[in-house]
């Protein structure tokens, strides 16, 4: 579905010297510098895949999306989506994809939401029955009924984003590009949007390429990830592998009255306690799960116990720590 080979995007940026002299000089002579947004990356995504693009600010995530939807021209390399070059595929390609930018609305802001939706029916040449069916589905799933008659300008950020995401599904895109779709939203709206996107991915097979700084978005919507750092691809694989590659420790959280000192049973583990809850962090190579469980059941009268997988927030934090150390 998506094939990226040695993609490079370099922006030419006007450099202005500071101060009054710099401003005057810039009037007569412009100085330019080059900024590499993407520095030669390659990866593939198959049809129906939900792929996350992870990276710090300025890593090249948004640039990648803009190249893939065909509005930016790569400086070098090849990009192909559905076997076509997005730059040259034109309007038929635009009918196959959907794009949502969290910070830029695709709705016409001064007219009621339903009119924007009806415009999509015309612009994408949708059959009336298909449009009606899709409209009913997105209105139901995203609870859009009360918003349809309001101009987008009068909606809250969360309402507007729900309406925006609903709009992009009206023409049944085969592939959806989402650039920070939940930025600034409250937890309930985030949950609604994540559940909706996951459902569409699983039931309709809509491919997703998602960038987000909210790692819960990534965890709940995507199975696979590419990680960009300073324009370079530093990981391409499943989210599970990503977690295990960067976070090797496991954690057991146990609530209950201590019977004996856990530190004596697992001297190599890090133990911290808060109230009646104790956290035991260990390296899988150091102790087996069986040994840890045996020690915990001996040391506590267990009321509750959880064995936690590495957290995606921690994974990303470690990736970028390593990037900075390097």
């Amino acid at each position, binding site marked *: 579905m998506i094939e990226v080979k040695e993609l490079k995007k370099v*922006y*030419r940026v006007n450099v202005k010297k500071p101060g009054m002299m710099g401003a005057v000089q810039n009037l007569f002579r412009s100085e330019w510098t080059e900024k590499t947004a993407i520095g030669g990356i390659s990866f593939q995504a198959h049809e129906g895949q939900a792929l996350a693009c992870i990276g710090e600010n300025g890593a090249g*995530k*948004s640039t990648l999306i*803009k190249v893939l*939807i065909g*509005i*930016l*021209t790569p400086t070098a390399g090849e990009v192909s989506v559905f076997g076509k070059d997005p730059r040259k595929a034109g*309007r*038929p390609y*635009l*009918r196959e*994809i959907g*794009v949502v*930018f*969290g*910070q*830029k*609305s*695709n709705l*016409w*802001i*001064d*007219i009621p939401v339903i*009119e924007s939706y*009806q*415009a999509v029916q*015309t*612009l*994408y040449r949708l059959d009336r029955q298909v449009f009606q069916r899709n409209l009913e589905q997105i209105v139901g799933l995203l609870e859009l009924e009360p918003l349809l008659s309001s*101009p987008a300008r009068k909606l809250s950020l969360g309402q507007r984003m729900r309406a925006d995401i609903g709009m992009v599904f009206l023409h049944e895109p085969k592939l959806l590009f989402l*650039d*920070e779709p939940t*930025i600034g939203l409250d937890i309930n709206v985030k949950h609604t949007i994540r559940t909706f996107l996951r459902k569409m991915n699983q039931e309709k097979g809509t491919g997703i390429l998602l*960038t987000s700084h909210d790692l819960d978005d990534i965890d709940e919507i995507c199975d696979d990830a590419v990680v960009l750092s300073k324009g370079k691809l530093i990981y391409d694989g499943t989210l599970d592998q990503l977690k295990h590659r960067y976070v090797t420790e496991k954690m057991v959280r146990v609530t209950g009255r201590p019977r004996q000192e856990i530190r004596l049973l697992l001297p190599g583990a890090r133990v911290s306690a808060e109230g009646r809850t104790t956290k035991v962090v260990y390296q899988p190579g150091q102790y087996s799960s069986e040994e840890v469980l045996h020690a915990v059941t001996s040391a506590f009268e267990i009321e509750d116990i959880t064995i936690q997988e590495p957290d995606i927030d921690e994974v990303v934090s470690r990736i970028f720590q390593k990037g900075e150390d390097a």
Partner: protein
Amino acid sequence: MKSFFRLTSISLQSHLYYKTSFLLNLLSPVVLLCGQYMLWGALYGQQGGTIGSMTQREMFTYILIAFSLNNLLGWSSENVLAKEIRNGTVVARCIRPVPFLVQAVSEMTGALAFQALVNFLVVLAGVVFFGAYMEIPSAAAVAGFVPCVILAVLLRIMMIDVFSLLCFFSTGYLGISWTRAALFDFFSGAMIPVAMFPEWLGNVARFTPFPYMIQVPVSVLLGDDTSMGIVQILGMQLVWLAILVLLHSLLYGCARKNMTIAGG
């Protein structure tokens, strides 16, 4: 065409949404029109007869029609695309499966549609109440004027579109918009009929598309000697239209190639 009409309707609705601003935009230029009448009335009052080659009656008709053509698009509706380019929201246009040019033309057509109706009523009222002081055109002149004015409006839309596209290459859209407005107001005959320019300046104006947006259509209506027949005039308008469409394609192609969209 369905896409064009849908986008035109959206643009019209968007402009009607801001009621107060819309009504003020609609009516405030009438004050300027009254001012122009008084100014030219005073000038003719002192000299009498003709100024340049125009009689007072012709001038009053000229002012009314030129005003009605000039205020079809206001500053805010002219700058919609330029502002979108400036703040990056133009990306929404780029991902719609409709040609960029169709979107730009329909946006401006919607913006001027209602104003055109109001201006028609203003012209009608002007003729009914002040017809005795104006040159009333013949039916044949009106027949020539109609296609000429349609092409004039299209030319104006394309001129705004081309200048707006220049904003892809500069961070200061206001400078570009002011330059466009100054060139248009001066050379189109919106402020002073081109016929009153010094000969050399008149010749410069005739080598630009601007007079074909106001001066020429009004001259056709007044039956003035424009040194060209109606067929030639329509031909020249079509040539300028083709040039502006070509410029649009070149600029848009170049912009797409070098586009930078700031932020996430």
